[in-house]
């Protein structure tokens, strides 16, 4: 069924279709209409779920952690300072290996107080052990919610579905709402790897010692370090599993295709612009303008930011002459986190020149293990835009990229800055 709705409703429809059993959330702009819509579904009897109104975001995720520990499919959503208030439980949910799905409707964090869009909220949760997906339009929002549950429940790791506040959450767009019958084929009933059972009581995630130990059943149990190693190992494995789930989604619904990246006109591009979320679709217009001027430019949207699809990104980027990373967030005191990630991924890769010269022996993994800079690979330049909802004008993007490609860009690289 085709509808014209806003991004928050797209997310709510996805949650409803996913058959979520427990929702706990606290209102915060611009997420509020999403959870309001869910409470309306439940009130109207269209959705059989327990809605737990809580007094804070910390409690919202705590309630989801408890629900998920009993084997229920659980969902929450938040933005900005609400997400930060949740932070301790965000780590907990990942360490506890609970497949909770949370929509993060991206918004700037205070201080100073600001309710508009940037990515500082979810980027600051980068290292919590959650999977992070970024949606670029309403179709991707609703589809990503369904994929998120499939991925989360396969790998027992929680997933954030991030989408831009206002730019997506409050704008109206046509999109396809999947048929319930198809969703049932795609998303199987949740079978937790472990669920609390009153008949067999257990303590979860109590003090776990630095070393391994013999458990009460006589098995050698993981210490803290082993549990954390497995989280990392399973996150890396998720890059493969997410693509398998994406392929299954495409077979059933006829949409999607790449779980990790969304390259646009990158094959022959001399310069590639990398970004997250709706900005990467705006950049497609910039690409057309610059290509009409003879500059071969492409855009690479990062769909899954954690785990980071380093090898897939390098495969797209390594033949380019230059890479521009445009970010709506910073690792304050250094640079945008995505810029650092892209540079790290390219470290040790082979560029086009290395290929032409016969290349380096072995695949990229070998080269990475040897270390060393990217051989004849692209330069990487980080740019900052849209902080705290500052308008990102397509003309500004075009001018900045043209200057960066054809001349020397000597400003700090903050697009639209008026200082």
């Amino acid at each position: 069924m085709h509808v014209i709705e806003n991004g928050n409703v797209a997310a709510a429809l996805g949650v409803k279709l996913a058959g979520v059993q427990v929702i706990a959330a606290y209102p915060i702009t611009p997420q509020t209409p999403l959870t309001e819509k869910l409470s309306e579904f439940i009130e109207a009897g269209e959705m059989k779920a327990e809605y737990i109104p809580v007094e804070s975001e910390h409690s919202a995720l705590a309630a989801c952690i408890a629900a998920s520990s009993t084997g229920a499919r659980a969902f929450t959503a938040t933005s900005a300072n609400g997400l930060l208030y949740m932070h301790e439980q965000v780590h907990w949910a990942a360490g506890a290996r609970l497949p909770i799905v949370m929509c993060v409707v991206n918004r700037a964090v205070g201080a100073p107080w600001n309710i508009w869009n940037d990515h500082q909220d979810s980027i600051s949760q980068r290292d919590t052990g959650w999977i992070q997906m970024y949606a670029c339009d309403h179709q991707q929002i609703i589809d990503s919610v369904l994929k998120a549950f499939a991925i989360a429940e396969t790998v027992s790791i929680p997933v954030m579905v991030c989408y831009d506040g206002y730019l997506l959450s409050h704008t109206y767009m046509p999109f396809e709402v999947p048929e319930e019958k198809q969703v049932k084929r795609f998303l199987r009933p949740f079978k937790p790897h472990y669920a609390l059972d009153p008949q067999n009581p257990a303590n979860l995630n109590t003090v776990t010692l630095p070393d391994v130990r013999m458990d009460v059943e006589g098995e050698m149990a993981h210490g803290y370090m082993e549990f954390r190693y497995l989280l990392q190992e399973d996150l890396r494995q998720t890059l493969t599993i997410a693509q398998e789930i994406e392929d299954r989604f495409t077979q059933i619904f006829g949409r999607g295709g790449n779980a990790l990246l969304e390259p646009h006109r990158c094959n022959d591009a001399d310069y590639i612009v990398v970004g997250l979320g709706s900005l990467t679709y705006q950049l497609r217009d910039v690409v057309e303008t610059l290509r009409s001027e003879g500059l071969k430019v492409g855009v690479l949207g990062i769909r899954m930011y954690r785990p980071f699809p380093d090898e897939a990104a390098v495969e797209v980027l390594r033949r380019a002459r230059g890479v521009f990373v445009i970010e709506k967030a910073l690792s304050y005191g250094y640079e945008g986190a995505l810029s650092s990630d892209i540079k790290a991924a390219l470290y040790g890769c082979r560029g086009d020149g290395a290929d032409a010269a016969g290349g380096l022996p072995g695949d990229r993994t070998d080269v990475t293990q040897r270390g060393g800079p990217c051989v004849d690979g692209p330069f990487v330049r980080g740019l900052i835009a849209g902080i705290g909802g500052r308008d990102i004008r397509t003309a500004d993007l075009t001018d900045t990229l043209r200057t960066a490609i054809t001349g020397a860009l000597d400003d700090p690289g903050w697009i639209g800055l008026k200082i």
Partner: protein
Amino acid sequence: MGTRDYRYKTSHSLSGPGDGGRTGSWRVQRPIIDLERCTPVKRGSEACFICWLYCPDAVISRTIPPTIDYEYCKGCAICAEECPTKAITMVDETERPEEVDTPDTCSFEGPRPCT
């Protein structure tokens, strides 16, 4: 042998002795009971057992004489603090107190009842 095949992805413990780990290794001081001062030993009857009652890890037995399970005793010294006859003293583990022979105990719940 590693833990690769361990069945649980989530850290958890079942009810049972030591499923949270053998916490006796945390101890820096070891509680030692002076049986000549211990009330149930002196009276030969079910009396006092303040140490058994207060022990937060339930490692002191309700037996005559009371025994301490050093596999799990964390050495918190609450028993020594609470003992009304000062029968329990805390001794540094570095002094390696000589192992106290397990005394011949009778129990109010176990297989060898106190008469």
